[in-house]
């Protein structure tokens, strides 16, 4: 699972109102190269929750993203920045570890790159 997907996932245990973002406990992180597509990155930027991305990247060992969300001008022309964003969103894979609900602390295991978000019967 990559950070682009992490940015879209919430904990949906019954009654949980603040299930986003899930905290990442990284066991094994791997990198896989993906073709750089600046238009795609710009498109996705609009959907990204910045703070969740920065924290997620940091917990996966990548601390190159700025704390504050960049403005539109940076996004338009700053290629080195777009490449960092590309790397964080698309090239880092959480292979083994867990996603932790920020409200309840419930751990969802990640094995072989797949988060298991299935709920127990008493959580539905």
């Amino acid at each position, binding site marked *: *699972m990559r950070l682009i997907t992490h940015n879209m*996932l919430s904990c949906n245990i019954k009654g949980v109102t603040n299930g986003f973002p899930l905290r990442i406990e990284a066991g094994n992180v791997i990198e896989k190269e993906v073709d750089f597509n600046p238009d795609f990155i710009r*498109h996705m930027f609009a959907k990204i929750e910045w703070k969740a991305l920065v924290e997620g990247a940091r917990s996966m060992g990548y601390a190159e993203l700025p704390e504050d969300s960049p403005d539109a001008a940076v996004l338009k022309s700053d290629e080195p920045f777009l490449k960092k964003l590309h790397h964080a969103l698309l090239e880092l894979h959480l292979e083994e570890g867990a996603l932790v609900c920020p409200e309840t602390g419930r751990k969802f295991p990640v094995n072989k790159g797949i988060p298991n978000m299935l709920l127990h019967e008493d959580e539905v």
Partner: protein
Amino acid sequence: MADQGLEGSNPVDLSKHPSGIVPTPHSPVIYKMPPRIAAIRLVSSHREVYEPCDDSFALVDALLADRTNLIEHNPKICMEIGCGSGYVITSLILLLKNEVPGVHYLATDTNPIATRVTKETLQAHGVDADVICADIASVLEKRLSGSVDVIVVNPPYVPTPEYEVGMEGIASAWAGGENGRTVIDKILPVVDLLLSEKGWFYLVTLTSNFPAEICLMMRKKGYASRIVVQRSTEEENLVILKFWRDKDEESEEKETSSSSFVSQFSKSLSSLMEKQWR
């Protein structure tokens, strides 16, 4: 019949072909290369995971038939709900790979073994998608609503006793409850929530699922629909539906009654079925 699935394929633009062979007026090179889809020999399997079957092939044929439109559609986020062996999502990725750069692919399944098998199938084809083990797509609803441009679903559609729905393992791939509709009817509102303004939704159904009624339900949510592929096998009558948001659809509803919609639908379905046997 075998040709039907290739309807949407285009002749390869040789000037862009990696072979580097450029046709000249003296040596025209004319051939049709079918777009690539997942290869059965590379699809991973497990006894608890549904293997690609007629329904999976019909869905991929529908995507093939609609490929030119899909390329023009230029989706940014595509997802499959209930990815099973991974045959369909892998095929979708391969179909669009060289034509639509920069797409985020997601796949979910409620069966943990199926999610692993899907990953293996993707890897065997040299492509990638983020796979999540989850019930339908509930974990994505909050953050991904109104964002998905293409959703494909081959749901558990087999009519079964209600208690079989939601059982673990391979049963989750087919057990559909009364009229095979229990899971389909749960998926429809989720799809409505996730689809972007321009989003498209492809759904596998059987005639015994009452597809006309499904289209009618979606019509009330503002969707137009059409049958992309109809296929009768020895065991089942498959109908692959495509839905998209249509602003006129709601206003038209006042003019066309539900019963005339259903009769129109059955008419076009039976004419498609006649064609198959002709």
